[in-house]
C-alpha cells in the first residue's frame, strides 16, 4: 500500500488530507500494521477542539492501547461512525474508509510543518531497518 501523495504525515503516524479549510485525519498503513488487528476505537464528538500534539482518541488492538495525537489544531466536525462497529476497517483501508475525524482547521499554516509522502516513506523505511536489527 502506498502513501497518498496529496496527504501530509506525522512522526506519530497520523495522516492529514486537507482541502478548503477542512482536514480529514487518520492513521497510516504503517501504524495499523504495527498495531495488529484493531478491536476498538475511541473518537471525540463533534464540537471537540483538537490541539496540535495532544491526544484526541485511541485505537486498541487485543494487546495494547495506542493514543492518537492531533497533527493540526481545529474543531471536530464529524467522527467516522463506521469505526464504532467496524474497527477492523483501520487494518483494511487505513487511508480511505478508516478516516477518523474531519475537522475545521484553525491554522492551515500548521500543515507546512508536516512531512509529505516522500519524506514519510523514507521515515518508515528507516524504522523498518531498525526493527529488523
Amino acid at each position, binding site marked *: 500500500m502506498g502513501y497518498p501523495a496529496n496527504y501530509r504525515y506525522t512522526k*506519530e*503516524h*497520523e495522516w492529514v488530507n486537507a482541502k478548503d479549510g477542512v482536514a480529514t485525519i487518520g*492513521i497510516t498503513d504503517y*501504524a495499523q*500494521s*504495527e498495531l*495488529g*488487528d484493531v*478491536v*476498538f476505537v*475511541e473518537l471525540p464528538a463533534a464540537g471537540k477542539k483538537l490541539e496540535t500534539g495532544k491526544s484526541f482518541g*485511541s*485505537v*486498541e*488492538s*487485543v*494487546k*495494547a*492501547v*495506542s*493514543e*492518537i*495525537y492531533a497533527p493540526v489544531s481545529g474543531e471536530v466536525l464529524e467522527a467516522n461512525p463506521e469505526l464504532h462497529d467496524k474497527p477492523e476497517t483501520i487494518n483494511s483501508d487505513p487511508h480511505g474508509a478508516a478516516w477518523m475525524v474531519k475537522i475545521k482547521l484553525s491554522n492551515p499554516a500548521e500543515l507546512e510543518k508536516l512531512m509529505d509522502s516522500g519524506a514519510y516513506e523514507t521515515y518508515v523505511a528507516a*524504522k523498518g531497518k*531498525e*526493527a*529488523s*536489527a
Partner: protein
Amino acid sequence: MESVTTPITNLSMNAEPSTSPGTAERSTELRKTPLNAMHRRLRARMVNFGGWDMPVEYPANGGLIAEHKAVRNGVGVFDVSHMGDIRIRTGKTPGGGLAAVQHLSMNDAAKLAIGQAQYSAMLYPQGTFVDDVIVHRMGEDDFLFVINAGTREKDISWVRENTKEMDCVVEDYSDAYTQLAIQGPRAVDVVKKLTDVHLDGIKNYWFTHGTICELPCRLIARTGYTGEDGFEIYVPSDVETSETVWNTVIEAGKEFGILPCGLGARNTLRLEAKMALYGHEISENINVWEAGLDRYCQMEKRDFIGRAALGKLSAAGLKRELVGLQVMERGIARDEYKVFDAAGEEVGVITSGSPSTTLGANIALAYVPPALAALGTNLFVEVRAQRVKALVVPTPFYKRARKPAPQAAGSN
C-alpha cells in the same frame, strides 16, 4: 500515535517491544531461546518478556486473533523454552526427593503416580506465592518442576536454599530443553505423526518418555496453558535439533491448519480458561485462598512452607477474592485498571483483562472484596476517563467440550 501500554512490571504481558528505536543495543542483552532466529525469520513481532526476546505474534500468519482461533479450533504451536526446569531427586536415602518436594510444594506429591503431573505452587512462609509450578513425578524419588521464565533464578535459589539441609540433589535443567507446546483439539493428531508412543493412553496431566522426531527418551507431557487438549514436548536445546523439531511439527500440522503462536495468544487463551499468570493473579503479595487455588493446596499433608500462615489466614477470612468480570458497556478492561462499586468507591483492581476472541466480549479477572464477589454483582471499571459497567460472571470463561465416553459394544 504512540503505543501506551499499561504499566510494565517485570512479568507483565504488556511488555516492551524489542524492536523499538534504541533497543537494538538492548536486544543483545535479552535472553534468547534456541528458536529465536527461527521466530525472526518468520518475521514475528518480538517483545521483551521478563528479559527474554520472545515472539508476541506472527503477523505474516494473521497475528494474535488468528493464532487464538487456531488453538481453539485446530492446533497451534508455541515456543515456551524460556520456561525453567528444576530436577529434584534423592541424595543418598530413599524418600529424600519426595520429602524435599513435599516441603517446597503446597500440593501433595505423594499422591502422584510415576508418570503423573500436578499443578502446584511454592509459597513464602506468609502463604503467598514464590511461583506456580507443574510438578512431574519422574520416579519414586525423582521430580521435575516446570517453572515460569521470569522467576527462573528466584525459584532455583529458593529450592536450593530451602533444601540445603535435606537429602536431595537439585539440578537446573532450564537451558537443557527446547520446550514446545502443541495445543488444540487436533494437537494429538499432530503429535501422533511424530511418535510411536501410544498417546491415547496418556491422560490429561500425565506424561511419558519416548522417541519423538527420532529423538530418544524425550519427555512428552499432556499439559498446557491454553484450556485445550495438548502436549508439551521437551527436546535437546541445540539450535539445529530445535529448528528441525519445530519444522517437523509445522509440517505435520499443516493439514490441520497449524499456526505458530506467540505470547499474545498464549495470554488470551489462558485468560479465557482462568489460568493464573505470575505477577498478575498470583504473586508474593497474594495468598492461596485469595487466588482461589484451594484445591491445589493440601493442608492435611505434613508441613510445607507457608502452611502455618495459611491456617491462620483461613481462620481470619478473606479480605479479597479473585472474580471474573465481563464488561457490559463499550470498553476494554485491562491489567491494572481500577474497579469501583456502584457508589463510586474504589474497591479493587484488574489483574488481567483483554478482549476474548472466543466469547466475543471483553473479559477480566479482578480482586474485589468478598462482599462484591457474588455472581451478578454490578461493578465499574475505570477505562481511561470513564467508568464502564462490568458484571461478575462465572469462571472459567471458556471450558473445552469433553468427548463423551465411548459406549460399550452391545449396550442399550
